């Protein structure tokens, strides 16, 4: 039984550039974000390619040391602020949160559009700064190098990030108010999909943390531009004060990046194990716990910076605690899989990859929470591997998994399943080949942010670069076949995966108003009884 596309939906209801640039439809805004962050991902990826090419040989022979400093700085800035932080919330969150709660849109649709414009403006300013001279301070902007010694485009880069911070906050504001005030009839808090809980918790972090980095980067810009010497050591300024203010946001920022991914994974596991998530309440609560505890541990980035031993001890202890709610989620996902009816569709491959790779990244985080270990591996490739396991092995896997899972809902088309499975496998293999050697390199003592290294580290670096090229192929594949599917993919039904959730009870793609009549919820989340469309319909690749 072939699916038929609805006649009028949010994509064809109106045509022309103006209908997109002035839209207030959360679904169209999500697609605007999708296009923008994909471009930024490619730019961040180009910086990564150059880094890995330089590191093929021990000598610094591809680029100068100054250029290399700019490469890793700009790779970090683009990937963190302009790709990872918006990714899942701005694309999948924007598209799905109203649908999942049975609403017609987010609470503040015009602020939603404004958030995209601010994002584009911030990215444009920072990119302009990076392309007309670059920045070499590291994405961490440590003072006093960033405020006085660096001769690169620090101010405009900081201003661009500052602007994009407001974009992030508007998204968070929208989610919090929408989830509190616009749930459809019968949708109590404990019937919400875990994806919504995850975005709620993420939004809390965004609102409480982003303002702090905003003011901090503003102060860096003011000190550089107007001699407002808050961090200047010559005046008695404290470099550690900058680091406290910076990491107060930047540590919770990593939870901004992972929590939405965990929300995606919960949805995928529930659907492809054909079971409600085990321990739903615990998973929901752990999202909030991560959001709260994540603010108590920032000092673990500063163990070797000179903070007091007393504070280091406190931060180390608290950092161990924050692992607990993450572990709770991993255990609950595993328990969901046990005795589940596992389907191996491509989104599920990404979800399973996430669980394995995030666990590795998270466990290595526990190593780093130990003061004694961190002193030795801080600023080495061990750290680089640790955070890439979480952000690439974790977040990007979840992002891709979610993009595949909801692609039929967003576009009304199915993508080629076999290619998708292949791409997932290539990403998984390429990723591990790229980053696992880096754990070893760091443990052996190779420092990060150096463009040259002792010859005995070359073999592992070559492996890492080889892995990166495979990973690149793995990322290019979905870019190609997802675009291909827009025109040539089979038309998708309303619920090709046979999943639970309100978003699957409206046509693919949905109408602008999301639901013909507002749905009324009588069941818990993930209650699969009576869901139309068998999963077999998905296997059309």
């Amino acid at each position, binding site marked *: 039984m072939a699916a038929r596309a609805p006649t009028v939906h949010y994509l064809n209801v109106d045509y022309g550039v103006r209908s997109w640039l002035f839209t207030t439809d959360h679904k169209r805004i999500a697609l605007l974000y999708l296009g923008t962050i994909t471009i930024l991902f490619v730019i961040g990826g180009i910086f990564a390619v150059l880094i890995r090419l330089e590191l093929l040989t021990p000598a610094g022979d591809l680029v100068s040391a100054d250029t290399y400093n700019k490469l890793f700085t700009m790779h970090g800035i683009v990937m963190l602020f302009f790709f990872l932080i918006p990714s899942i919330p701005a694309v999948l969150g924007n598209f799905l949160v109203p649908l999942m709660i049975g609403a017609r849109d987010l609470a503040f649709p015009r602020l939603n559009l404004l958030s995209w414009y601010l994002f584009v403006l911030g990215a444009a300013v920072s990119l302009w700064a990076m392309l007309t001279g670059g920045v070499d301070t590291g994405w961490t902007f440590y003072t006093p190098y960033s405020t006085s010694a660096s001769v690169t485009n620090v101010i405009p880069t900081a201003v661009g990030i500052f602007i994009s911070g407001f974009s992030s906050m508007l998204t968070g504001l929208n989610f919090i108010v929408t989830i509190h005030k616009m749930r459809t009839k019968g949708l109590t808090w404990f019937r919400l999909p875990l994806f919504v809980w995850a975005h709620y918790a993420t939004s809390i972090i965004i609102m409480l943390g982003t303002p702090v980095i905003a003011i901090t980067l503003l102060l860096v810009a003011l000190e550089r531009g107007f001699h407002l010497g808050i961090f200047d050591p010559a005046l008695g300024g404290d470099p*550690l*004060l900058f680091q*406290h*203010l910076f990491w107060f946001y930047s540590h919770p920022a990593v939870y901004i990046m992972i929590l939405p991914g965990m929300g995606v994974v919960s949805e995928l596991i529930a659907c492809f194990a054909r079971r409600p998530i085990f321990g739903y309440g615990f998973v929901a609560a752990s999202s909030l716990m991560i959001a709260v505890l994540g*603010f108590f541990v920032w000092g673990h980035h500063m163990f070797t910076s*000179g*903070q*007091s031993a*007393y*504070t280091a001890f406190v931060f180390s202890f608290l950092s161990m605690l924050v692992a607990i709610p993450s572990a709770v989620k991993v255990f609950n996902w595993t328990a969901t899989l046990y005795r589940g009816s596992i389907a191996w569709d491509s989104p599920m491959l990404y979800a399973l990859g996430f669980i394995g790779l995030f666990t590795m990244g998270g466990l290595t985080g526990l190593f780093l929470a130990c003061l004694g270990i961190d002193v030795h591996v801080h600023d080495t490739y061990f750290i680089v591997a640790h955070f890439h396991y979480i952000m690439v092995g974790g977040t990007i896997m979840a992002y891709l998994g979610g993009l595949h899972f909801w692609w039929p809902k967003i576009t009304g088309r199915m993508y080629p399943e076999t290619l998708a499975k292949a791409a997932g496998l290539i990403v998984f293999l390429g990723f591990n080949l790229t980053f696992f050697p880096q754990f070893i390199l760091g443990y052996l003592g190779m420092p990060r942010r150096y463009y040259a290294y002792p010859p005995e580290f070359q073999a592992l670096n070559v492996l890492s670069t080889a892995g990166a090229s495979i990973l690149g192929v793995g990322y290019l594949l979905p870019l190609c076949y997802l675009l291909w599917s827009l025109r040539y993919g089979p038309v998708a039904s309303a619920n090709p995966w046979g999943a639970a959730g309100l978003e699957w009870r409206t046509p693919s793609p949905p109408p602008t108003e999301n639901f013909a009549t507002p749905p009324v919820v009588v069941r818990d989340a993930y209650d699969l009884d009576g869901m139309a469309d068998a999963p077999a319909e998905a296997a059309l690749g």
Partner: protein
Amino acid sequence: MGSEHIAPVRLYVTVFACLLALTALTTAVAFADLGRASTVIMLAIAVTKATLVALFFMHLWWSERLTRLVVGGALAWLLLLVGLTLADVLTRTVLG
């Protein structure tokens, strides 16, 4: 609409008078010989003034629980940021 509360003008004027009085008190305390206590007292007065503005001018007294949670959360997070940072600054030379 809903649980709208309209406060009497008298209440606003009373709060206003308290705020002015507390302002005068703060300045007086600053110039008095109270040693280290003067900072603590001035901060306490500031907190009192802020509380009066929040409760009555901003209607927090009659607001829903969620609003008070938002305010409480913001204050708690401010204290966390200032507190832990200060803890580091103050203990650096204690344990080396």
